[in-house]
């Protein structure tokens, strides 16, 4: 298949719905569903009926502003979120008014401004289709240009050219480590081996992070497209998506996407009538945070206990079943199609010098606009929290923002003006992580927060290596003693020493980064910690 054929197909799909002028989009991502989006969708669909062929109601993916869900957008066909009339906190009882507004004046009492910074300040690349297309519809995806990157790569580019574009883009792994994606791909491509694998890490385990889930639920084909392009570039014909079992909706939509892509000839034997074949299988996680670690994840796919193994050898050399394996996370794969479509140089033009492109963040905690946002790398934390996030509720003061989940740390108000990218966060003693941002107000006790994360690491430690298994336990005990006001200066010194040992000697990333929340607390909130010590 050639790009023109696909373009023709897309045009045909659009023509099928040419009569439809207006759309009512109901957010059907997990968050809005939990707020009652399904009855809203049912009520709207009932009233709309056939919409005289001019209007239809459809369920779409995440629109981002989860705190205002269920969200409904009324827009001209093909208009994006910013140009739509957005309604918040919708109930089934509002359905008649909303349908009335499709051809008339907006319902002001439900109105949610799309001009507010939350929407206006975002730049959507990964999330460009989220909230616009029906995630279960193959046609919807193709109509907005889906699979054109894949067809372009397969028909017009050599694998080396694909590698070059990805390298040029400067894309870095969105799972947290920030390893250059192009370099990773090239390494796997160079490693000899008849059988290679592509793995999509969708084991989004950081508490407070739901970026990957939203992408899987809103735009699943994009992940398949990214994986296939990767497979083509490195010479793999088999892929696995390792998804958390806690995300049933994401799994369901991914399954539908795989089935439909296969049915349309865009997955499986001879993808899009080319010589390239690619199979994708879903593997369910089973509630083990450590499986986000590459080697543990592969062990889990192999049906074993998800315990990491020493590296080297790296997965690129000896990964799944000993074969060269490429592992990237959901957001990384979601960036691939736009990069191939628009060129690596286009992508490299966005973001900061060393961190290119955009980053999706999940805003949660004590902040007005909780939800999902996508901003260019380098956007300041202050912008994210005060503008996009809408500030702190209940008139309280900002105290800290936690990034990077259990591997990250807390950033105090003094550093809010820093632009967010991989390296700046590292200098602050935290990390990008997968993109969770938990905002805390002045009521938060930082020792308690550090203890919470240590408890997390302790219960998620796989138990293989001693520093992580026993060290996190001891650190948790010490934090507990300090939080209760029974700790001494000697306890604090011991805690700091354990942080160093666990960081330096643990086998995998979980243990190596487990002390980070404690270290950042000691760095920025030492006085608060010391005030809790006995005799201080």
């Amino acid at each position: 298949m050639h790009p023109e054929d696909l373009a023709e197909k897309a045009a045909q799909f659009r023509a099928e719905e040419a009569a439809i002028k207006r759309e009512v989009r109901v957010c059907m991502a997990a968050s809005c569903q939990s707020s009652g989006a399904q009855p809203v969708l049912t009520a709207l669909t009932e009233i709309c009926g056939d919409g005289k062929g001019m209007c239809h109601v459809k369920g779409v993916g995440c629109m981002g502003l989860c705190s205002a869900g269920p969200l409904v957008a009324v827009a001209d066909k093909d208009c994006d979120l910013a140009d739509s009339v957005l309604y918040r906190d919708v109930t089934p009882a509002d359905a008649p008014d909303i349908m009335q507004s499709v051809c008339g004046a907006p319902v002001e009492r439900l109105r949610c401004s799309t001009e507010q910074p939350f929407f206006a300040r975002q730049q959507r690349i990964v999330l460009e289709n989220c909230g616009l297309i029906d995630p279960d519809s193959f046609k919807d995806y193709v109509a907005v240009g889906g699979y054109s990157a894949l067809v372009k790569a397969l028909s017009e580019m050599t694998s080396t050219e694909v590698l070059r574009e990805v390298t040029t883009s400067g894309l870095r792994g969105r799972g947290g480590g920030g390893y250059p994606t192009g370099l990773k791909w090239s390494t796997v491509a160079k490693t000899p081996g008849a059988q290679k694998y592509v793995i999509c890490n969708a084991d989004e385990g950081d508490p407070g992070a739901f970026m990957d889930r939203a992408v899987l639920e809103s735009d699943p084909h994009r992940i398949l497209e990214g994986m296939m392009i990767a497979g083509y570039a490195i010479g793999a014909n088999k892929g696995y998506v390792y998804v958390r079992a806690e995300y049933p909706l994401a799994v369901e939509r991914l399954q539908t996407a795989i089935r439909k892509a296969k049915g349309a000839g865009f997955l499986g034997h001879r993808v899009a009538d080319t010589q390239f074949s690619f199979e994708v299988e879903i593997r369910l996680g089973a509630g083990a945070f450590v499986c986000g670690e590459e080697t543990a994840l592969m062990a889990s796919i192999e049906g074993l206990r998800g315990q990491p193994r020493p590296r080297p050898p790296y997965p690129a050399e000896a990964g799944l079943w000993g074969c060269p394996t490429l592992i990237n996370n959901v957001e990384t794969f979601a960036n691939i199609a736009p990069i191939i479509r628009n060129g690596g140089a286009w992508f490299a033009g966005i973001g900061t010098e060393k961190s290119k492109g955009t980053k999706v963040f999940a805003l949660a905690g004590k902040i007005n606009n909780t939800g999902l946002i996508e901003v260019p790398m380098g956007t300041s934390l202050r912008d994210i929290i005060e503008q996009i996030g809408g500030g702190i509720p209940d008139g309280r003061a900002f105290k800290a923002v936690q990034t990077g989940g259990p591997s990250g740390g807390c950033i105090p108000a003094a550093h809010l003006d820093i632009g967010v990218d991989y390296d700046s966060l590292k200098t602050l003693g935290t990390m990008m992580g997968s993109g969770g941002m938990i905002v805390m107000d002045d009521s938060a006790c930082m020792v308690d927060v550090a203890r919470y994360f240590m408890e997390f690491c302790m219960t998620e430690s796989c138990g293989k290596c001693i520093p992580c298994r026993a060290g996190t336990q001891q650190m948790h005990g010490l934090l507990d003693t300090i939080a209760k006001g029974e700790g001494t200066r000697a306890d604090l010194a011991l805690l700091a020493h354990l942080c160093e040992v666990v960081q330096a000697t643990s086998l995998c990333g979980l243990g190596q980064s487990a002390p980070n929340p404690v270290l950042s607390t000691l760095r920025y909130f030492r006085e608060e910690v010391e005030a809790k010590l006995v005799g201080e």
Partner: protein
Amino acid sequence: MQQPQPKPPSPSEDKRWKLVNATMRRHGYAAHALIETLHSVQEAFGFLDEIALRFVAESLDVPLSKVYGVATFYHIFMLKPKGRHTCVVCTGTACYIKGADALLAGIHTRYDINTGDTTADARLSVLTARCVGACGLAPAVVVDGDVFGKLTTDSLITKLEALD
């Protein structure tokens, strides 16, 4: 040339074993299908008992201790039957900040059960999850598969009381 291990008969007439067998067949009875198979046993029967673990071990030709090691490594697998209703309290960071602890304490006060326990009348099991991904709705709870957000102890207890 080694003969492939003959497949054991299903432990009982229960039709649900067909689902389990189907999963194993789909993966060619390969040892690496262990986790997928355990998922399908749990989906069919609600939990993994000794009969099921032995059957899976024999079918996939995986040592018993390995099966048990895997089943106890992953927190999703339950080795005990759950109550008729399950209430999963999210303890992700956002929910923690917004008071998940208070919800658990409320459940403990009302039903006298801790995380992982089931009430004596087998009506309700209480579990915790590491982030159900509904951080925007914190604190969130999953009751029988449905997510409820922005809960208080009172509104959660009311919800749980309303279950049959």
